[in-house]
């Protein structure tokens, strides 16, 4: 391993590769900040450029873009409540309220440090655990994935907001229903399209996330303009606040970061799971672990609530490299794009990559450390400038949010129908937000819908239509048991509090 590290350092520390990481991080941050343009788009745009370099340099550039875009996505989540990347949806839960309280600078600093710590820690885990973790990820079968998704959805519904479990479950079902629109992945049979060709490919994730977060947020601000409570919030939004993190906040982060980085990394290793589930699970776990006083702050600008998903999503980014590099199975959509680029270079990822191209494997791991340091150096001093976006008056900011959202959809499909659909979903979402129907469960369900159906299909076909697969394997049973415990614990706590009241 020492030999591998030295090979990696030798490759990653060349001037060209350091410049590539820097350029990648900067470019990624800018692209990630624009709602609608996430890491996948950023990396896809990089592919033609990387073909001019050797595979290690090309992959280092793409890895830099990846981290940068995830951090950039967090910035738009915190400042605009417009997460263009699914992995940063959970960041907006506490990051945006913190920005509304005039602590935007602090929220961005917490996000930057948490991302740095999460990414660095997971790069260390990757270094030591990559070979054994590839074996663990191989042992996951369809029933386990299905159970894991049920756990993720139940956790987000249970922890989304106090006393809203049923509303959150309704939103979960609605998200899954929206995901079922379009062609069935196996048989190509169209479902719920009502003979409309525009719906054949289904509804795009970016469209749903833009409509339910960015657009409905903008409409809600206008709708509640005369509301005295929200008016106060809007005034404080123009204050940046200090980027300094005090001792109490640091103490909270010291506890949150290690556990969130572990969960983020482990979830990232599982093929298909990725940063989104990792950030939601880390958020849910953190909310469950902290004391009652801190728990009350979740969703209202909690330091733990912001640090946990930020750490986990960056840790998952590193984790998702494990199945890609060791098994040739992408851990996320973004690594799937990178896998395509690797194949374009003529490099076949898999267990033999260690032996055939050690410089690629180790230089990527080494460049992760360098990338994290560069991201921090690049982003912390820029926070006051990035956060200037908050000083833009609402009369300008709202149309600009709408403009970014519509442009994000337009450049993806060049189709009017998608714009109408987005406006329609945004209007419904605005109305539902008025009555406290939470949007995050809908988003997570929408992201997981296709995967969930796929894994249920495989499980049911393998078990010949029997539901015994749910308890046949110990791992599946354990995950489902955890789900049941979360639900029972949540109901028990609600009932206990009511009785107390």
């Amino acid at each position, binding site marked *: 391993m020492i030999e591998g590290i030295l090979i990696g350092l030798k490759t990653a520390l060349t001037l060209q590769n350091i410049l590539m990481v820097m350029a990648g991080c900067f470019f990624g941050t800018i692209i990630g900040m624009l709602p609608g343009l996430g890491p996948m788009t950023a990396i896809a745009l990089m592919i033609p450029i990387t073909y001019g370099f050797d595979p290690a340099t090309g992959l280092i550039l793409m890895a830099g873009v990846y981290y940068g875009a995830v951090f950039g996505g967090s910035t738009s989540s915190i400042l605009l409540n417009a997460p263009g990347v699914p992995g940063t949806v959970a960041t907006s839960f506490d990051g945006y309220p913190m920005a509304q309280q005039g602590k935007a600078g602090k929220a961005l600093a917490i996000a930057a440090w948490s991302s740095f710590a999460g990414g660095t820690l997971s790069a260390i885990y990757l270094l030591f655990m990559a070979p054994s973790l590839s074996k663990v990820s191989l042992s996951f079968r369809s029933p386990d994935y299905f159970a894991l998704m049920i756990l993720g959805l139940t956790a987000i519904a249970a922890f989304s907001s106090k006393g809203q479990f049923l509303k959150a479950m309704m939103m979960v079902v609605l998200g899954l229903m929206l995901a079922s629109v379009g062609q069935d992945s196996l048989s190509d049979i169209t479902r719920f399209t009502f003979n409309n060709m525009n719906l054949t490919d289904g509804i795009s994730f970016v469209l749903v996330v833009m409509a339910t977060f960015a657009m409905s947020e903008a409409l809600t601000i206008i709708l509640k303009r005369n509301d005295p409570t929200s008016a106060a919030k809007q005034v404080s939004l123009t204050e940046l606040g200090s980027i300094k993190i005090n001792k109490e906040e640091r103490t909270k982060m010291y506890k949150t970061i290690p556990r969130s980085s572990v969960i983020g990394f482990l979830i990232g290793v599982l093929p298909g799971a990725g940063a989104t589930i990792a950030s939601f699970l880390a958020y849910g776990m953190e909310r469950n672990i902290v004391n009652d006083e801190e728990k009350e702050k979740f969703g209202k600008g909690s330091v733990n609530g912001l640090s946990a998903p930020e750490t986990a999503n960056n840790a998952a980014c590193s984790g998702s490299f494990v199945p890609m590099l060791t098994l040739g199975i992408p851990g996320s959509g973004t690594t799937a794009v990178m896998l395509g680029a690797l194949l374009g270079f003529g490099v076949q990822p898999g267990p033999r990559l260690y032996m055939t191209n050690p410089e690629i494997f180790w230089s990527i791991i080494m460049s992760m450390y360098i990338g994290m340091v560069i991201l921090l150096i690049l982003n912390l001093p820029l926070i006051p400038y990035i956060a200037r976006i908050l000083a833009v008056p609402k*009369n300008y900011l709202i149309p600009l949010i709408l403009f970014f959202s519509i442009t994000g959809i337009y450049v993806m499909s060049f189709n009017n129908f998608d714009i109408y659909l987005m406006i329609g979903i945004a209007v419904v979402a605005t109305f539902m937000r008025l009555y406290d129907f939470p949007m995050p469960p809908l988003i997570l369900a929408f992201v997981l819908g296709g995967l969930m159906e796929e894994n249920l299909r495989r499980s049911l076909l393998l078990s010949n239509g029997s539901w015994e697969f749910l308890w046949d394997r110990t791992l599946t049973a354990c995950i489902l048991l955890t789900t049941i415990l979360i639900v029972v614990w949540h109901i028990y706590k609600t009932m206990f509090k009511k009785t107390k009241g």
Partner: protein
Amino acid sequence: MNINTTKVISLLFFTFSAFYLYTAYQIQVFAFDENAPFNARTFPIYLGYAGLFFSGLKIILPDPNTIKVQHKTLEYKKTAILVVIAIIYGATILKVGYFLTTSLFLLSSYYFLGERRWVLMFLLSFPFVAAFMYLLHGVLDIYLRDPFLQSIGVMG
């Protein structure tokens, strides 16, 4: 009589789930797939029942956290105008082109939200869109259809 709006929304969701379930049963599957343990309609059918179950529970069970919305303080008019402007923007963007429609969308949105600083409004519409368009079209190589700019010879 006070009607709990959350219950009304749940009732609407119940109806929607029933319609979804009905449509799920209507999905045409291949003859050989009809009796398979899993086909294109299996998952949607489960979802339909799940929707009925959760919304049904919400309707039946008492609601301790009733949400009261102060409709009098809400700005329905401005919100509706903004939605209409966005729809017009969506309807014209392909025919007229990105530059002009986006600039006019921004300009009219600023105006209807109460802004009257014309110089700033102009700077944050036409030149801003031009710069953004250059970033997308010129730098990132994302093609943006623009019949208006093509007609005046600015775009090839």
